[in-house]
């Protein structure tokens, strides 16, 4: 267990990258931290929230990333060091503010940590956030080790104050979520005193002042570049004049080291690890470039560093040229996560080394084993998830309605409404709140002969994050749609964080919840509420609402997330099967509960040809009792 607030300098702890970043912020005397949950960044603010009371921090799960960054900026304007954290998609949300903030600058340290998700393991895209740093002329740092994650996060505040502007730090999954030993530094004894100086020039760039501030940004870049020349976050290992120079950053460092080690090429391949990746320390880089004819660039997602190095090399007036290898040359994958395998093969190809990663025999054997013992598995909603029952009701209601209605959605656990676990109901998923926006458009196509009912789904968290403006838009335009709010009392997908609709804040203190139903009533839209577990009632309400067409309508399907509930309370029911009544594969059922409804708490026993309850998985919600057409499932209320 990490003790992130430990007042124990020079001791070592095993920390997750995100924890290390949080510790770095604490060592810098951070006062305010804000974020919106987003994998792989969530633990940064979650960690700070846990020690907020103890260390006199203010920590918030803000309604969205733009507001989170604005909160942090507000603190910085009042002289308090602040940190905002988000995933790559969150940066897009915050970008409007950030693209103005860079021109106004900040007086106190403001660090924006963006955790990218190469491969989009838990995202809708695998966007490379680093381009934003270049586009906005802001400094960019990329930690490559867990120690660095902490040290960089701390130093980022100093850099930020040096240039009086925000500082970007970019992490990736393999840094944020992996763990390593970190030697702690000192925690400062600060008395953070907040005060906004009303006498100074306003923080604003309007009318024709932008070019002036823009010029100032470029001047900043030069200063930063000079500071970077001396940074301990850039280092080199390898021979003086390597046959091949690897330039890498972030998680590329560990991968490159491993690859070079496996090929035993430490004597001919050098690795220049950069931690300061925008602007580039030209002097430093050109010194190493001059020692080698070949450069291989290793980085996650886009050829950001690679392209910038090529630009840099074009400006060097040495008359020399280099052969660059990397994503552009096809030596490193330009999409998906990088792995040591790619780097090994790249080096082997460049240096004409023979390397066979595994025998053909091994490959064949492993594929046979995979086919035989690793069963294909769909992603699924948890046992007891209210989204399953809501999508079930939507599926039935739309089929009964018979007009080819469909669902557009956004981001959350319920995005799995795209898959068979959600009965393939959702037809579009893009950004937070996008379903409502798209529905606002679809709902105005009547004049083009459009007559399909449109349902937009959103979660309680995305409702506050982004849906409200789109909903207001659609109410005002009188679009024809039904918004279904899946209210499971939390931001579940990212770790059950609170949000403005819940009664608690990030620091565990009570907070007045904003009532979605009352808000809809105030907006003047027809709104109904239903219990997501009550399949019959929810289906009927949907059918009725679908029929009440030609205007905006909202249905709030309420039921606490099964996992949130399970942490607090015993299961609602003890659920059991009566095997005598179960007709299994026969005409009349054909495994309706396991094959169609697909709750993982139900299992099909191929030997007895009956359904069983998996007691380790079943959450005791009791909904399957309503699904079974033979009354073979029964439930007893848990005392």
């Amino acid at each position: 267990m990490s003790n992130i607030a430990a007042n124990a300098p020079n001791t070592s702890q095993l920390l997750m990258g995100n924890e290390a970043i949080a510790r770095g912020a604490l060592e810098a005397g951070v006062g305010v931290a804000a974020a919106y949950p987003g994998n792989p960044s969530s633990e940064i603010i979650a960690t700070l929230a846990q020690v907020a009371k103890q260390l006199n921090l203010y920590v918030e799960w803000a309604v969205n990333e733009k507001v989170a960054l604005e909160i942090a900026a507000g603190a910085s304007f009042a002289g308090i060091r602040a940190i905002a954290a988000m995933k790559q998609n969150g940066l897009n949300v915050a970008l409007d503010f950030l693209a103005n903030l860079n021109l106004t600058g900040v007086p106190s340290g403001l660090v924006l940590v963006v955790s990218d998700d190469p491969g989009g393991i838990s995202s809708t895209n695998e966007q490379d956030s680093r381009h934003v740093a270049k586009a906005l002329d802001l400094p960019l740092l990329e930690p490559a080790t867990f120690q660095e994650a902490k040290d960089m996060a701390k130093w980022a505040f100093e850099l930020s104050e040096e240039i009086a502007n925000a500082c970007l730090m970019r992490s990736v999954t393999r840094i944020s979520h992996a763990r390593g030993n970190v030697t702690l530094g000192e925690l400062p004894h600060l008395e953070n005193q907040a005060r906004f100086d009303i006498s100074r020039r306003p923080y604003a760039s309007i009318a024709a002042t932008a070019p002036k501030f823009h010029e100032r940004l470029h001047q900043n870049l030069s200063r930063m570049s000079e500071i970077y020349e001396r940074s301990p976050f850039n280092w080199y290992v390898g021979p003086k004049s390597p046959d091949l120079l690897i330039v890498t950053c972030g998680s590329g460092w560990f991968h490159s080291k491993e690859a070079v080690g496996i090929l035993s090429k430490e004597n001919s391949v050098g690795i220049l690890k950069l931690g300061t990746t925008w602007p580039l320390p030209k002097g430093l880089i050109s010194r190493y470039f001059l020692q080698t004819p070949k450069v291989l660039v290793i980085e996650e997602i886009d050829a950001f560093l690679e392209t910038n190095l090529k630009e840099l090399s074009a400006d060097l007036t040495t008359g020399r040229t280099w052969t660059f290898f990397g994503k552009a040359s096809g030596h490193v994958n330009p999409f998906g996560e990088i792995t040591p395998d790619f780097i090994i093969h790249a080096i082997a190809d460049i240096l004409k080394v023979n390397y066979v990663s595994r025998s053909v025999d091994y490959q064949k054997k492993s594929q046979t084993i995979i086919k035989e013992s690793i069963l294909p598995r769909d992603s699924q909603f948890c046992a007891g998830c209210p989204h399953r029952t809501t999508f079930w009701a939507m599926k039935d209601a739309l089929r009964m309605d018979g007009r080819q209605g469909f669902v557009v959605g956004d981001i959350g656990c319920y995005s799995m409404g795209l898959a068979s676990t959600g009965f393939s109901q959702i037809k579009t998923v893009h950004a937070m709140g996008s379903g409502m926006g798209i529905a606002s458009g679809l709902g105005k196509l009547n004049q083009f002969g459009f007559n399909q009912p449109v349902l937009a789904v959103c979660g309680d968290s995305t409702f506050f994050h982004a849906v409200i403006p789109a909903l207001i838009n659609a109410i005002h335009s009188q679009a024809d749609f039904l918004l279904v709010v899946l209210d499971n009392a939390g931001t579940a997908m990212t770790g059950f964080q609170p949000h403005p609709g819940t009664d608690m804040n990030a620091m565990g203190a009570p907070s007045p919840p904003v009532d979605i139903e009352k808000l809809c009533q105030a907006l003047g839209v027809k709104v109904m509420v239903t219990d997501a577990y009550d399949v019959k009632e929810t289906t009927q309400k949907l059918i009725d609402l679908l029929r009440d067409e030609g205007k905006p309508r909202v249905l709030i399907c309420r039921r606490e997330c099964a996992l949130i509930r399970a942490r607090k309370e015993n299961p609602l029911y003890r659920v059991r099967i009566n095997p005598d009544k179960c007709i299994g594969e026969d005409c009349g059922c054909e495994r309706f509960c396991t094959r169609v409804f697909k709750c993982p708490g139900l299992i099909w026993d191929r030997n007895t040809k009956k359904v069983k309850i998996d007691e380790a998985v079943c959450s005791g919600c009791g909904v399957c009792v309503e699904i079974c057409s033979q009354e073979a499932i029964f439930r007893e209320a848990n005392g």
Partner: protein
Amino acid sequence: MESKACQALVDEVIKRDLCTFCGACVGLCPYFIAHDGRIVLRDHCDLAQGRCGTFCPRISLDLEEMNKAMFGTPYSWREVGTSKAIFMARSTNGKIKGRAQDAGTVTTLFWFAKDEGFIDSAVMTLFEDKSLPKGVIVSTEEEILACAGSSYVATPTVEAFNRGAQEDDRKKIAFVGTPCQVLALAKMKGSTQEGRNPIGKLQLVIGLFCTWALSHPGFTQFLEREVSNPIIKYDIPPHPANVLQVYTEKKRIDISLEHILPFVRPACQVCHDLTAEFADISVGSGRGEVLEWNTVIVRTPRGMEIVEGAKRKGLIEIREIPKENLARLERASFNKKRRALDRIIQKTGSVDDLLYLKLQAEIARQLLAE
């Protein structure tokens, strides 16, 4: 008889406007539901063969084979189906006659059958005012009487039989319904599909003469516009009167059939069966001198047993059917068959493709040539 799975039902019957909405495919499993005048497949069942396809009267219909199985005789195109006796009948019970559609024969026979223990339940169709009628399974004389009267709207009544047959305390069930529903029950009887065939509990089938049925919600919405007071009875008097009579609590409204015919279910256009040819007893209205009577066709020994028993007890009175009426009925029946064949061939474009009818092209040609 061939059986097909749920998707075949959707593609070959529902999507081709052949579905009669009889309800035979509903109530057997969770996959099909009857909703708002339509049969809806809410999920896919993986079975290649199922009771839904076996029972559907619009999939794979071999009238010759069915007639042999039920009556032991070849199917007759010219007569009003196989029969043991055809006559007029009417109830002697004033209470029944006051409530009934015509002469109260069906209600009286059901009361008798229940009294004598032939049946413990009856599947019937109940309508209230302008709402969509529903199939129900009932046990008491009062409930049976409450179901008297036709709304002319197609109702999935066989669903009520499928569900009712699953109730353990119902062991002997009667059914009254339209020719398509009766056809579905006959297919059920002939089904070789193993397991869970509800037909085992069926004791008595009364079929009603039917020319066409109306669809919901089209007809219902029309009524809501045209008739404000609650409706207690509908009637279509015999030709040449060309109206639908709608009786409200206050008065009778006559609506010209030309306004009603647009709501006839497309599936009725290709129906060949006027007199419910596969029932134990078929019942229709009378005309002319026997306007106050029901026309009754008895087809099976069970049907005979019920009718003779009721007659012996004085619950119904019987008289002979006027020759002219029988001739007219036979003509109407045959014309319906020809119209059906004609329209099927119009749909398919070829006499070699008769959709679900298992009938040789040569026979079809002969019938149409007359």
